């Protein structure tokens, strides 16, 4: 396959940046999208140019490091996958692919396609935990019974990988899906109930502080989420928030 790649290049956080066009040949359908970029980078290094930097690590869709807005969609056109799991068989010979960093005020670009997602960290730090010390004498695990359906729903929310695709896809750059996934997980479990009010208020406050936009329920986040985190979580967080703030 031969491709035309239009890639956002930006030297550092303060540089202006712009789209640079590359022609790339020798791409195989069995390559992953990132392996395709590896090929491009090998070419660039051979030419003595700086490779395109992009975030990636596990390359099996679970660490949440890889990002990339590909042809206007986070993680590209395929569904329920991350960029590292996107394969070139989704594209055709001769295609033009536009590759940009995830864009949001709360995700400033560090270099090329790498953005700073530490705003997500701060949201989690604001309350995304159960306050339990490690003592070795916490009660027996089976002393806390959790109905299977609740445990399963909590698990589904907990599978969020924190990649930021929800923010990238949202026309408002809202982080509601990300924040609600954690709020939901812990709100659904008896372990998290005690601090539920404090948690949702603190996490939403931090989320707002970071400069994410408002949720307007477009549902883009749910569609683009590599883990299929449901919009239900946002509704649940709205409910939790209302309950907590009217107490």
């Amino acid at each position, binding site marked *: 396959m031969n491709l035309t790649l239009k890639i956002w290049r930006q030297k*550092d956080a303060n540089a202006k940046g712009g789209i640079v066009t590359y022609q790339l040949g020798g791409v*195989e359908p*069995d390559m*992953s999208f990132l*392996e395709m970029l590896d090929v491009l980078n*090998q070419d660039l*290094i051979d030419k*003595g140019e*700086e*490779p395109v*930097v992009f*975030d*990636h*690590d*596990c*390359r*099996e869709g*679970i*660490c*949440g*490091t890889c990002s990339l807005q590909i042809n206007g969609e986070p993680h590209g056109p395929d569904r*329920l*996958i991350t960029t590292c*799991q996107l*394969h070139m*068989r989704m594209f055709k010979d001769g295609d033009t692919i536009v590759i940009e960093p995830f864009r949001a005020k709360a995700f400033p670009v*560090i*270099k090329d396609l*790498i953005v700073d*997602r530490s705003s997500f*960290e701060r949201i*989690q*730090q*604001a309350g*995304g*935990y*159960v306050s*339990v010390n*490690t003592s*070795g004498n*916490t009660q*027996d*695990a*089976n002393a*806390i*019974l*959790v109905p*299977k359906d609740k*445990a*399963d729903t*909590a*698990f589904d929310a*907990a*599978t969020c*990988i*924190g990649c930021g695709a929800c923010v990238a896809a949202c026309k408002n750059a809202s982080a509601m899906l990300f924040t609600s996934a954690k709020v939901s*997980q812990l709100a659904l*479990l008896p*372990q*998290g109930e005690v601090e539920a009010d404090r948690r949702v208020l603190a996490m939403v406050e931090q989320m707002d502080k970071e400069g994410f936009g408002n949720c307007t329920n477009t549902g883009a986040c749910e569609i683009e989420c590599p883990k299929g985190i449901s919009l239900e979580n946002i509704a649940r967080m709205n409910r939790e928030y209302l309950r907590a703030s009217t107490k």
Partner: protein
Amino acid sequence: MSVLDSKIPEGPLEHKWNNYKNTINLVNPANKRNIDIIVVGTGLAGGSAAATLAELGYNVKTFCYQDSPRRAHSIAAQGGINASKNYQGDGDSDYRLFYDTVKGGDYRAREANVYRLAEVSGNIIDQCVAQGVPFAREYGGQLDNRSFGGVLVSRTFYAKGQTGQQLLLGAYSAMNRQINRGKIQSYTRHEMLDVVIVGGKARGIIARDLVTGQIERHSAHAVVIASGGYGNVFYLSTNAMGSNATAAWKVHKKGAFFANPCFTQIHPTCIPVSGEHQSKLTLMSESLRNDGRIWVPKKLEDAKAIREGRLKPTELAEEDRDYYLERRYPAFGNLVPRDVASRAAKERCDAGYGVNKTGEAVYLDFGSAFMRYGKEAVATQKIENATEAQIKELGQKVVEAKYGNLFQMYEKIVDENPYETPMKIYPAVHYTMGGLWVDYNLQTTVPGLYAAGEANFSDHGANRLGASALMQGLADGYFVLPYTMGDYLAADIRTGAIPTNSPEFDEAENKVREQLEKLMNTNGTKSVDHFHKRLGKIMWNKVGMSRNAVHLKEAIGEIKQLREEFWKDVRIPGEMNGMNTELEKAGRVADFLELGELFAKDALHREESCGGHFREEYQTEEGEALRDDENFMYVAAWEYTGEPADAILHKENLDYEYIEVKTRSYK
């Protein structure tokens, strides 16, 4: 007397840890505020250690190269975590978990450590549940278990195929709580490039900010290395692209002994390599072997026809299939330990029975599972006169509920529907049992320098059982280090803050800077990946699943040569001051190029087959591993003296008081 003192406490096995905990020194809460600890790596071991130490009141600094602690590669562990809870009432106990782990490790692990691991395994589950980790549950609301390779009980707790993720997010949330309290300072996108030793004790690190390129000094009263394993020395592995041995290797060069580097786990169920472009390998959870059956064609001509695409696996009759694990190991069948399963796959493929284009793949077939579960479903749903297709469909639904995400992942990568055609799998490098030598306290041979999780060598011997890595990482971090480090730090309550302007810090920083400058100034012609791939090929072909003296000697020479070439000819574009991913990689590959040689040297010296280490010269007539307990029942701890080739071997003899050393048999 060996220079290695494992510091195993006195007393009977089951009381060692408790007695020890009751007698070690403690640091009072007011003093903990004056003590700093650095934790390098934020996976299960590092994350849990950092959170717990911070809870206790120490000032903790964590370092990870990722943009968030949550992205450490522990996140990718799929199958589960073992604990001797005996919730299933199938006869499990601490002793049995201990026994299985020591046996699974082919009698090359330290008894006391493993027993302690088994002892605290239950606490881990309690702790994680309390944190809100959503483990799988039964309808009664209780925790569910499944079975893993090499054991005869169901003791594995799991969260679908994402157990590592859920446990790591649990540890991460515990960290976040401490970050919020100001007790942990989290340095992300930072890479440790050296340890600083002052007065014989580890007193800090030199780290590089990967965004700005700044080189920073950080001091502490103790340093924990929890930076994972070195599987990426093979280039292709199931490790993350960034997983590296730099932290472990740098401390090795500063005096920490490196133990059993050749003990590496090749995981039997990974997606086979598809081409030259391949950058990493993807694991399919061992849990799949609960229901999947592994086979290759019985006849060579069938295998050939399948490889050439003339025959479909589904068309092959039952009697023409060789379920070789069930044939060779009737007692454990498809659930033999990983090393055994991997070697058996290699044996079949080497004999010409491989089923993909490269001839390096075997089938993992769920056909029987579909029918078995389908029949159960028909019985419980009271469906009469169900057709075969109906039964299969019902069975597929059950399998989907269990492993749906894994099947989906497989389909996305391979572009084949595993519900219709059997999966193709092949072994791949997955985990390294070897690592920094540590004593019972998890302290390395450098005082104040600790190693936890995959970075140390301690608990898995020559082969790790499935679902034990998560257990060990969390045991080290939540339940071992917080005690044993207190014992050491009790002597430091009057030390005060460690200054970073000492000559030792100067020297360490200068050395780091020199190496980086040297890499930048080499101005060669070949990329870092070029060298990494070549190293990987040497390792896989000559130091891989089966090894022999001739190949190992060749490998040692070739790696040394490659290393020299690397330092002359590597090309790193860009600048040192600023983000430079090629420079990051170069530093890591430079260390792999040294570690790889020690790895091969260790494999050459160990003239026996045990666990993940299989020497072709030492096997039974049936092709099973032949251990030599008389001469090799020891931990090989290597001391760095300037070149990997000159490393000095120290032996820690392993004494088995509570377990009878037997030939490992899964037949």
